[in-house]
Structure formats: C-alpha cells, structure tokens
C-alpha cells in the first residue's frame, strides 16, 4: 500500500512537472535509444551476413587469379581457366564441389527492351551450391554445358526488366550480345545478399559462356564448396598443390593465385562490428550515468521544493523508510520512463535502418531488458542521496519552511 502510494505520488509529481521531467530524462532517453539502436543494428547486420554465408552452403573457399611475381618483377595477372577448375574437380579426396564462374555485363534484348545486364556462366552445380530454386521451366544440366547449348536461366526480376512476364518469356528466344538464347527456366526470388542480387542476373552454362559469349577460357574465380567437417587447412594445401603443379610453379616461387576463406571475412567483420558495438554501448552507458546525475540534481531540487510536503507527511506518521521509498520510486520512475521512451526511439531507428539496408529486423531483447534495468539501477543509485536528504528533514522545521 505504501509502495502504491509512493508510485501515485511519483506519477503526479512527474506529471505536474512534465517539461522538467522530460528534459531531465533526455540523457536517459538518448542513452537508451543509442544502446538499442546500435546493438540491434549490429546484430541485424550480423544476421544478414550469416544469412548470406549460409546461402553459400556450408563453407566456401574462393580461389582467384593473383599476381605472378618472379623475384621482384611482376609479370601481370596469370589467369585461372576452366582447365584449372577441371583439374581441381578431378581430385575427389575432400568431396569438394568446384564451381568456376565467369561474369560480365552484356547487352540483352527482348522485343523492344534492351538492357545491359550481368551474365554469369556457371556449372550446373552452382544452383545447388547457392540453394537457388526454380520458379518455372528447368535448370541447365551437364549436357547443356558440354554441348555449349544456347540456353539461359534468368533471375526472378529479369522478365520485368525485359518488360514482359515470366509466363511470356519462358521458352522464348532472347538476344545476349547479339546471339539468340532460349530461356529455359526462371528462378524464384532470392533477395539481395548484400554483395550482389541473384534476381537480376542471367545464368548460362559455363562452357557456353566461355566459348560463345565471353570468348575466353579464363574464369573470374573458382568457388570450392566444402562441408563443415572437412579441415580447411588441408583443403587449402590440396588446392595449392594442384594449382602449383598445373601452373608449373617451381619450389621457392610464389603462388600466382589467391585462396581466401569467406568465413574469415565474416569473422573479421563480426569482430569489427563487435568492437564498434561495445564502443557505442560504452558511450551510451556514460550517457545513462550522466543522465542519472541530471536526475539526482532535479530530485534534490524537488526535495527542496517539497520540504513542506515532506514535513506534513512526517507529521502524519511517515517513517524514514516511507519518505525514502517515495523519492526513490520517483527517481526510478523518471529513469524508467526515460528508458521506455528511448526504447521506442531506438526500435524506430533500428526498424528504419533494417528496412533501408534490407536486413532482417529482430528486436534485441537482451539489450532492451538490459538497458531498462540499467536505467532503473541508475535511478535507484542516483535517487538514494536526494531521498535520504528528504527522509532526514526535521519535521518541525520543514512544516514551517517557506
């Protein structure tokens, strides 16, 4: 009952000084909003990253052409080509999936539409590795690839880009760089991964691409898909051995290719995000503490203003504890209300950012509970002194305070 009385008294006190209360809790509002927004954005970004890594299926190593140096002399880029990929594919000890890619932008025409679009030449396994699903028609297969067939599978947004519909374009011929290709399949919408948009790409068989569209056996990169239980270091060594042998690189000479691990990037990025989040959270924490000092300041003013009220309450039988409780509840309430307003702001910022970058939106429950609890603790800590000051007032003198 006493607690309820304290709560009612606190609410009426905060309401009757609403502007002052708002300004007092502004630092708490900003602090909480910052904590929620930053931690939420951090975890959304991380989730987006994880989703795009999951899209790659298990773990993927990435082999790209590198600089060929003999001694100190750079001899230009030595390309990776389809034969390198074939050499890797012949080696089956690690159960890896070799997926070389060539991607370039080319003119694509259909009817009146004429667009410059990303064309990717892949092996049929690429769709499986990426987990892309078919909306209608069929995917190209090994026969299409070996036969260098003029077939194309298009991303979900391509029909619209070509000013037509999925139904109309299926099994029709479109022109890619002036040559006619048959649209055999349309993919389901995948959504952007943040790096590229699979919905806006046209997919052709690797050998078709190499021979007919791009006129080069050189590939941009070779993705090596491995399952999670395979030792990455051993895989890297195998790739190195095979490619060094293929490129005829003697002992003591540097590799003319680079092998990188996507999950290494991910780890680095996660680490950077973590440090950044921690930093902002620390600043926000300082802001909350500064807010607490503001609350303490205004509570001291409030105690002085309400000296007569305190005197009266004591005359009516309020104990030391009852007066303490009243002012601590008020300080905590001030901070918690500030925290809740900040929470709403923080979630709004998070929601806007997530939709802007097309990241998954998730409420950071830990940060929400944590920051409200922290606000309450700030109120409790900084409320103690003013409350004690109030409780220690002498009833006889405070009743006559002007």
């Amino acid at each position: 009952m006493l607690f309820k009385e304290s709560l009612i008294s606190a609410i009426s006190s905060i309401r009757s000084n609403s502007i002052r209360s708002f300004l007092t809790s502004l630092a708490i509002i900003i602090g909480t909003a910052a904590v929620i927004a930053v931690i939420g954005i951090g975890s959304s970004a991380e989730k987006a990253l994880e989703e795009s890594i999951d899209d790659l299926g298990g773990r993927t190593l990435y082999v790209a052409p590198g600089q060929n140096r003999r001694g100190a002399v750079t001899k230009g880029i030595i390309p990776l080509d389809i034969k390198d990929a074939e050499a890797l594919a012949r080696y089956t000890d690690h159960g890896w999936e070799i997926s070389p890619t060539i991607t370039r932008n080319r003119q694509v025409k259909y009817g009146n539409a004429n667009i410059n679009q990303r064309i990717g030449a892949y092996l049929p396994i690429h769709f499986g590795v990426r987990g892309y699903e078919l909306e209608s028609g069929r995917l190209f297969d090994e026969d299409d690839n070996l036969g260098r067939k003029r077939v194309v599978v298009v991303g979900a947004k391509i029909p619209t880009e070509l000013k037509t519909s999925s139904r109309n374009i299926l099994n029709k011929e479109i022109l890619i760089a002036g040559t006619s290709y048959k649209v055999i399949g349309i993919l389901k919408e995948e959504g952007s991964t943040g790096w590229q948009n699979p919905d806006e790409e046209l997919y052709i068989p690797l050998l078709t691409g190499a021979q007919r569209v791009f006129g080069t056996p050189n590939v941009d990169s070779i993705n090596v898909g491995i399952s999670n239980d395979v030792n990455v270091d051993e895989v890297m060594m195998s790739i190195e051995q095979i490619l060094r042998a293929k490129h005829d690189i003697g002992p003591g000479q540097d590799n003319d290719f680079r092998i990188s691990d996507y999950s290494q990037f991910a780890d680095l990025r996660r680490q950077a995000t973590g440090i950044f989040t921690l930093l902002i959270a620390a600043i926000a924490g300082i802001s909350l503490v500064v807010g607490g000092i503001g609350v303490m300041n205004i509570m001291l003013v409030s105690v002085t203003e309400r000296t007569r009220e305190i005197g009266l309450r004591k005359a009516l039988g309020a104990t030391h504890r009852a007066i303490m409780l009243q002012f601590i509840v008020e300080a905590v309430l001030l901070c918690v209300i500030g925290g809740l307003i900040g929470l709403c702001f923080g979630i709004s910022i998070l929601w806007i950012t997530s939709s802007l970058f097309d990241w998954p939106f998730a409420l950071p429950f830990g940060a929400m509970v944590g920051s409200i609890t922290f606000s309450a603790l700030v109120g409790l800590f900084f409320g103690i002194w003013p409350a004690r000051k109030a409780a220690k007032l002498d009833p006889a003198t405070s009743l006559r305070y002007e």
Partner: protein
Amino acid sequence: MIIKTTELKRSFEVGSETVEAIKGINLEVNAGEFIAIMGPSGSGKTTLMNIIGCLDTPTSGEYHLNNKLVNELDEDELAGIRNKEIGFVFQSFHLLAKNSALDNVLLPMKYAGANIEEATIRAKHVLDQVGLTDRMSHGPTELSGGQQQRVAIARAMVNKPSILFADEPTGNLDSKTEGEVMGLFKELNEDGQTIIVITHEEEIAKQSKRIINIKDGLIESDTKI
C-alpha cells in the same frame, strides 16, 4: 492522564549563542480536556507544541504521553506515535494539492499500514462527520478555505488520536467559517476528544475550557473556565 511533562526544556543553537525557547514547563493534561495555549510570538508556544506533538524532542526534562516516556524514542517510533496518537491541524491546512479530499484523509491510514477497503470506509465516515459527504472527490483547489480546514480536521481525526493539536486553525479563515470550525472542535470535544488549540486570539481561546498562557518559555497562567 494523557500528557505529563516535567521540567521540559528546549534550547537552540543560534550562531554561537544558545537560546532557551522553553525553560522548564510542567504540564498535565487529562483526557477530554479542551485547552487553548496562548502567548505572543517568541513565547515558546510553538516549541512546546512541537515537543508534545512529537515533532521535536526536548533538550532536557521528561515527557510522558499516555504514561509512556516519549522523549527517548527514536525517529521512527516518534513517527508511529504521531501517526496513531496525535492529529495535527495547521493554519495553512497543509493538504496535498493534487490529491482528492478522500485521498488526503486516507494518507495517515496508509502510513499506518491499514487495509485499503477498511481505510476507505473509515475515511468516508470521518468526512461525513465533518459535513463533506458530497465533496470527497474534490481536490483542495475546488474547496473553500473552511472546507479545506474540515478536510484537514477529518485527516487529523481519522486514526482516532489521543490528542488533536490545532496550530492557529482559524488564522486563514473569515469569521463565519472560523465559527464553523470552532463549532466542530466543540462537537468533537463533547464526544470526548482531547483538543489543544494554539492561538493568539482571545476570542478563540475563550471557546475552550482551559487557557494556558505562555511567556518567555514558562507557563504564566493556567486557568480553567
């Protein structure tokens, strides 16, 4: 006997000087009395009221309230006595501005830890007694001075105190409402309530049954009417 003081003294430090506000007061009050304490400003009557109202403690001497020595009790015990044994009525009413009449009257019972339903019934009953049946949900700003003082009297009476203290209760009221408030005190006294009124007005004092004059920290006269 409700109140018995023996050689009650209270001094204050003012700068480097010690000022004796009351210098040895011996006072006995029996149940059912209606006393007026009079005296000019600075006579010590307010200090005396603060001590027997348990808002302050004497520097020396003894104070028995209901045969209990109270001048050695700690702060929270004094708060308990103020809550249960003493009802205060002040010149400036001292109502909580944002609370209704009913909530103001409920406050002492909340500090007593009473059950809310029972407390509400009791508070309504007391407000009824002071003639505010239809004003219970009004806030102080919606009440006249006389009505506010009656809320304050109801609040003072709600825990059935041994003594009702009134410090210049009519100081802020016009003569008509002054008569009403004093009439209410007389009624309460007739029902057996012990009342001590502090005043500097002869007219008010004459309505009591015993007038005590204080001068320079000592009882100058003590007359039964």
